[in-house]
């Protein structure tokens, strides 16, 4: 499993590097807040732990992780959406 995970890590890092390098500086803030939302992927880990364990302390820790990671995910995608809508509306105005 460790070996498979390492291969996967390297593959994603290389792919990510190639694709992120071509995002224009115009969109660096939305890129960052979008990536920020993705780092909330840790919510999946929180779900897995929360749903498997019954002990009080673990429930508390993973419950806190659930809330914080969800703020990260939802807040991140939401602000990115707001920003990109602003860029999008300037596209629309131009097409009129």
């Amino acid at each position, binding site marked *: 499993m*460790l070996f498979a995970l390492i291969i*996967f*890590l390297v*593959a*994603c890092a290389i*792919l*990510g*590097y190639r694709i992120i390098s*071509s*995002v*224009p*500086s*115009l969109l*660096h*803030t*939305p*890129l*960052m*807040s*979008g*990536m920020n939302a993705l*780092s*909330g*992927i*840790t919510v*999946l*880990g*929180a*779900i*897995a*732990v*929360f*749903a498997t364990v019954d*002990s009080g302390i*673990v429930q508390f820790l*993973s*419950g*806190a*992780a*659930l*809330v*914080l*990671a*969800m703020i*990260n*995910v*939802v*807040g*991140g*995608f939401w*602000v*990115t*959406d*707001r*920003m990109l809508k*602003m860029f*999008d509306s300037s*596209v629309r*105005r*131009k097409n009129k």
Partner: protein
Amino acid sequence: MSVIIIAAIFIVGFILQIRLMQSPKTALLGNRIGAAFMGAAIIYTIIAYGGMGNASLWLWLVIGGFAGVSLGHVVKMIQMPQMVGMLNGFGGVASALVAIAGSSLFVSGASWYLWLTASLALSVGVLTFTGSMVAAMKLQGIISGKPVNLDESGKLQQILLLIAAVLVLLSTFITGIYTVWVILLIIIAAVYGVIMALRVGGADMPVVISLLNSFSGVAASITGFAVEDPLLVGVGAVVGVSGLILTRIMCRAMNRSLSAVLTGMTTVSNSKKAENLTHVSNSLEEVHEKKTRGTDIGKIINLSKKVIIVPGYGMAVAQAQGKVKDLIDCMEKAGKQVKIGIHPVAGRMPGHMNVLLAEVGIDYDKLYDMDTINPEFENTDLTIVIGACDVVNPSANTAEGTPIYGMPILEVEKSKNVIVCNLDEKPGYSGVENTLYSMENVITIWGNASETVPTITEAC
């Protein structure tokens, strides 16, 4: 193996999200695809772990989601850096919590790498959290934005790092007292994060925000190892790489090494700053004289066909974006060609200025980055600098030994005329006096950009 294949499918969605971010025309769609894939990944995981009927699980998810929406909805565009900073911190601490909670699941005799990665994820997550919170508080003005150096030589940080490394190793092999290691690591990582972020001052924030963004991804990725979830490993890696790329771009744009930023080597000595201040009071008369040349401005603007506007963070602080938009509209109505030149570090996070201008409805195809706009200054009749100082300071090419020496700048001085609308003639964040102000072809208008920019618009 099947988990890897499922993870790969989700990764394709997130890669598509980033791919569509290459153009402002498709970026919105990309973001929504990313969000949809994230939602699907969450639902998939809940089903896979049999949590569909788990009411408290849903309750926590809904609370977090609701808080995220409210936060994302109220935040202002100028507050975006602290928002992203804070979210980085939440992501980091969530990863740390998952690592701690997850480690309680390890059966005795679990693989060494589970303990190792749990400890690492915990450390990176906690330092991301404290570092991000300090950075966000600085940006929000809750604590002073000036660099605070608790650890002049940088030795303390090195020692903390060393202790943390030893603790991580101990926790990998002596797992019987894992709780003790956890507590010690939390303390050390927390202190490290605080020291790191306190050292960094205002204009260096883009670097730190980018770096912490990277850390939050790294924390998620390492947590992925600890809970053996390839999707966390992969997505965390992508975020980590993204943060690193932006960190590098920001460092290059300031011509500073990452270590120089992180050790707070930002400003010239205080004595030199004091000198500059006395200089300011001496030249007030001169300032006044320059102000009265206002009649020239109308003439210059009328004769100018090609205009470049260079906004800086000062414009955002003065909330003058709307006024700048009025100016652009007015000039375009008069048949002038208007472009906007944006320095990579204008603002408090990468690309911040573009967002602030898009917010007031300025078309993004008028926005040009530094490398594209620099060759155009020579053929430009008029450049208007609004609230930007260090990034247009020609001293960057000549003044050896100053913090900005060698930093790539917008070469506004090459255009035929320059109007500078800055708050005052004090040096910018770097503390280096701006030689642009005293140049022949430069007219300075001191004051709040919300008030000074409309005076130019009137002259137009």
